[in-house]
């Protein structure tokens, strides 16, 4: 039984890594908390669902469309965020909370409140290894998160652009002084974030029922992992994702499925209680 919990926990965690990456990147570079993150994910899921159901698109081909939709919205969102005044972090929370309500209600209007699921039979099939069972879906999530992290790693640590991004994450003003176009870096972060959301959204629709208000939970997961991992540390993100995934699987087995929703909240509160100034850890949070 423990191996099963381990497998499902790691695969859930890998999925959470995908969910959180976009949020973490946008927050790291622009210091904007995008509370509409989960809603964007669900929107990406819905657009994939719509293509797949109404137009019978192959599932893989729904990704580019979902990415395009989210990319357009994220660029608009960045425009909104860039008009905010100080304190940016708090104001971005309030603004994006409004955006979240807006998107949630638009989805309610367009897709109704019914539960939707993208059913891909092959993802639920799998194979036995002595002792436990792995489905192709779980394998896909695991390797996909590793591949995407690998690509991001190369981008961030092996290219000149990545260096500029990392400099912006570390110290925005100093980066600007060094001649880095900080605004462009922000736009870039929103674009990469949108691509990541567009990738995670359709997957969300495969393993989780889609309904307009479900995005809130994904937002909470993304916040928890981002705060857990700290800004701009890719390795910590995967660790944080796995820990959250494992914690949720254990909770489901030990206490029951209905307690799962509390795990990320408790984890986040514990983190904040012990690191009251947030992830940056120095001086004012």
């Amino acid at each position, binding site marked *: 039984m423990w191996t099963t919990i381990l497998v499902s926990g790691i695969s859930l965690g890998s999925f959470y890594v995908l969910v959180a990456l976009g949020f973490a990147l946008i927050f790291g570079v622009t210091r904007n908390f995008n509370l509409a993150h989960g809603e964007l994910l669900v929107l990406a899921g819905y657009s994939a669902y719509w293509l797949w159901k109404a137009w019978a698109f192959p599932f893989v081909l729904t990704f580019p469309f979902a990415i395009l939709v989210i990319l357009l919205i994220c660029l608009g969102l960045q425009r909104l965020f860039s008009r905010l005044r100080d304190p940016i972090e708090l104001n971005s*929370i309030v603004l994006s*909370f*409004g955006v979240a309500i807006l998107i949630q209600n*638009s989805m309610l209007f367009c897709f109704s409140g019914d539960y939707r699921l993208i059913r891909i039979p092959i993802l639920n099939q799998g194979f036995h290894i002595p002792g436990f069972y792995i489905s192709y879906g779980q394998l896909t999530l695991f390797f996909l998160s590793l591949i995407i992290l690998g690509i991001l790693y190369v981008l961030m640590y092996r290219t000149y652009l990545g260096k500029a991004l990392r400099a912006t994450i570390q110290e925005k003003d100093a980066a600007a002084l060094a001649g880095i176009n900080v605004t462009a870096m922000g736009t870039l972060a929103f674009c990469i974030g949108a691509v990541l959301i567009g990738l995670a959204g359709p997957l969300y629709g495969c393993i989780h029922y889609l309904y307009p208000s479900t995005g809130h939970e994904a937002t*909470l997961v993304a916040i928890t992992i981002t705060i857990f991992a700290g800004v701009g540390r890719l390795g910590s993100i995967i660790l944080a994702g796995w820990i959250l995934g494992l914690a949720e699987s254990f909770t489901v087995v030990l206490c029951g499925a*209905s307690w799962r*929703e509390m795990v990320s*909240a408790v984890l986040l509160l514990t983190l904040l209680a012990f690191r009251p100034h947030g992830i940056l850890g120095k001086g004012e*949070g």
Partner: protein
Amino acid sequence: MIQSTSKKTVQYDDKWGITTDKTSLFLGLLALITLPLLVQTNDYILQVFTHALLLASLALAWNFLGISGSISLGHAAFFGVGAYGSALLSLEQGLSPWLTIPMAGLFATGLGLMVGLICLRLRGAYFALATLAFVEIPRVITDNWDALTRGSLGLVGISGLPTLRMGAWHVDFGSSITASYYLVFAYFVILLGLVTFVFRSNMGLALQAIREEEIAAEAVGIHVNRYRLLSLLMSAFFTGVSGACYAHLVRYIEPGLVYGLHFSAVPMIFAICGGRFTILGPAVAALVLYPVDQFIFHPLLPAGHEFLYGAVLILTMLFMPNGFWGRLRNA
């Protein structure tokens, strides 16, 4: 903003807009008192305004905290605990709502103490995120504690608003919509008076100082954490009382409803759109936006009519960070 221009100094007494807004306050209250007479035949309108007054009280309660510069995204926690506390006490113990509603407020205050212990060290964005996460805890517990709360089924058959007896004379607030309207109205007026009193007292000044510059406030001898905790507890108490009133007004509650995002979002949106640094702003916003939502947007778009709140919040953040009431008064 505290500024040292002479114009501002002259206006100091009008800081909270009560003096300048006396006329609008008077006219507003008069309109609210006479409303049931004007719409006698239309229960629906009265029902909407009863809810609007309750939401206005919720926004005022939220603003006890909002005035200190903190933004809470988790007031549904206090609202839900208040609603469940009062409903369960009156259902299981048969207590009168006169008793259970204040007790519900105390439950919410207890929860507020817990929030305070965990979150008060946090500032700004991290405080907001912590409150956002905190709601999940009472919600999931209520959802799972089947023996006490009947879980996700919710509670039905909650007793209506109570009867007031004075000797032979009595009025049953649960009997008609008009009666419940006046009870909620009375609660709203009392809360408005209290908010005015607190905001213009030393505590209000202290909270404002904390909002403007916490370190400077501490340097002049304001007990920052004591005042922040006090404002959080007051906010929690009245949010709990509002939740209890809601339970007895609607007479049906379930965890997804009373702990839902709606009751976290709505007081915050009203307070910010109205102007969270004013006394009347949050209440005015509630009394305008909720009826607009119910009378105009709900019939047009039964699904998704609440996009109005999101849109209004975004516009406020971009163009009027001090809210429309704050803007009107400074104009």
